[in-house]
Every structure is written in structure tokens, then in C-alpha cells.
């Protein structure tokens, strides 16, 4: 019997290192929160498509007033921000802490770019008199994009805290929990927009 086989048979399962195939990044409690958020937005998306089915003409006509160019720009900003944050996690795991912090900073800037674009989009809608009370489509538009924007702002604050910690070299291969948790929340914000954008701006 080989030494490896002996050591494998005598090591209690609880003392073996966790397999990479079974690892949840970040704090499991935050993952419960992320799943609850996904469920809440999922209910909003289903409510939207059901209400849309009741008055397709109104929804299609109202959708034409949205700026798809700004929508696609915001999509590219968020997915690129998610890429930067995922890269920050990968770099920090390899102990490339400074590069990791820089990528995190880039992710935050791109997230703030999303907020700036939304500001211009909202301003144009308000100037055109398209408010929460204009019709059912705009009620959904303002509520869904508004709640999502609050998540973008909240996620940016979380990433700012992570960035501050990353610059102080508080994260590294042995201490990834905080960074992974912040990154997971940020990717959820991206995930929600990936469904929200086609629902409101594209689906006809």
C-alpha cells in the first residue's frame, strides 16, 4: 500500500482541505441575501411581463421613447465593471495586491459611469414629461430602474470599502472573504441589469 493511500485512508474527512469543486466564494450569509434579492427582482420581472401582456400596444409605444443607445452603453459599463472586479479577485488570489486594488478601482469608476449615464437618461425623461404617473409602462420603468440604481449605488459603496481595504493590503491569498463577498454582490447587480435591460428596452 502506498504512503498516499495510507495517509488518505487515515485522514478524517473533516480535516481534509476543501475541494475547489465545492467552494462558495465569500460569506454564505450574504449569498442567502443575494438569492433573496434575485427572488424579489424575479417577481418584479414576472409582474412586468404579465402587465405588459394586458396592454401590449401601450407598452410597445412607450418603449420607443426609451434611449436604447444609453441602455446598451450602461450594459457595457456594468459588464466591464464586473470583469474588472472579477479580475481584482483573481489577481489578489495570486498575491498581486496592487494590481488587484487597481482593478477594483476601475470597477468602481465604471459603476459610477453607470450612475452618470442614468442621471442623463432620467433628466431627459423628466424634461419630456415622462414620470412615474405617465402610464403603467413608466411606472415599471421608474420603479425597476430606480430600485436597481439604488443597488448600483449600494454596491459601489461596498466596493469602495473593499478598495480601501485592498489598498491597505488587507486582502491576500489567505484572506479573500471580504473581497469575494463584495464582488459577489456587485456581480448580482450586473446579473439583474442583464434581464432588466432587454425586458424594458428591447422586448417588443
Amino acid at each position: 500500500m502506498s504512503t498516499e493511500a495510507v495517509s488518505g485512508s487515515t485522514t478524517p474527512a473533516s480535516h481534509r482541505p476543501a475541494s475547489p469543486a465545492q467552494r462558495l466564494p465569500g460569506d454564505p450569509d450574504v449569498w442567502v441575501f443575494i438569492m433573496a434579492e434575485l427572488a424579489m427582482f424575479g417577481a418584479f420581472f414576472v409582474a412586468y411581463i404579465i402587465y405588459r401582456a394586458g396592454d401590449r400596444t401601450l407598452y410597445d409605444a412607450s418603449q420607443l421613447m426609451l434611449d436604447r443607445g444609453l441602455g446598451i452603453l450602461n450594459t457595457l459599463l456594468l459588464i466591464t465593471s464586473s470583469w474588472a472586479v472579477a479580475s481584482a479577485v483573481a489577481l489578489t488570489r495570486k498575491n498581486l495586491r496592487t494590481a488587484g486594488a487597481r482593478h477594483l478601482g476601475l470597477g468602481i469608476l465604471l459603476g459610477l459611469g453607470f450612475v452618470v449615464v442614468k442621471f442623463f437618461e432620467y433628466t431627459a425623461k423628466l424634461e419630456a414629461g415622462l414620470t412615474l404617473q405617465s402610464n403603467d409602462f413608466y411606472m415599471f420603468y421608474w420603479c425597476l430602474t430606480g430600485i436597481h440604481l439604488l443597488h448600483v449605488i449600494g454596491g459601489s459603496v461596498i466596493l469602495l470599502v473593499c478598495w480601501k481595504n485592498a489598498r491597505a493590503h488587507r486582502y491576500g491569498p489567505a484572506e479573500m472573504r471580504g473581497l469575494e463577498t463584495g464582488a459577489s454582490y456587485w456581480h448580482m447587480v450586473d446579473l439583474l441589469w442583464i434581464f432588466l435591460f432587454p425586458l424594458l428596452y428591447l422586448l417588443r
Partner: protein
Amino acid sequence: MLLLRHPIHRTWLLLAAASLAALFVRVDVTVGAAAGVATLGLAWFKCRLVILDFMELRHAPRPWRWAAEGWALSIAVIVLLVYLHTH
């Protein structure tokens, strides 16, 4: 290509391409509900990429991966069914 070497970079490229493709689908496909089906299909594909590669649930315990993937699939299917029912 250096950009394609790391899975995270490949995922970003696919996400960007799929996002731009959604716009072309809207412009070019005008027959029936095909544009809507393609748009929702692309959204589901993008969600899956984010869940597996950015959120790193590809190697997570199965219940977590199934919960996230199940969310994306169920939203896409429910929206698609209602959309097709009323198209």
C-alpha cells in the same frame, strides 16, 4: 491571444459580443416573435456566464449553483412563455 487566455477575459468578450448582438437582433429580425426569443435567449446566456465565471458558482456546492442557475432559467422561461402567449 493574451486576452483569450484567461477565462474571465473570455467571459467579458462573450458578454460584450452578446450585448451588441442583442441590438442587431432587434434591427434585423423582424419576423414574428423570433427577435423576442433571441433577445431572451441572449439574456439567459449572459446571465449564465456571469453566474458561472464572474460569481464563480461553477465550482460552488451544487445547491448554490442550482439556485442561481435555476433563477436565471425560470425567469427566462416564464417571461418567454408569457411573451409567446401574447405575441
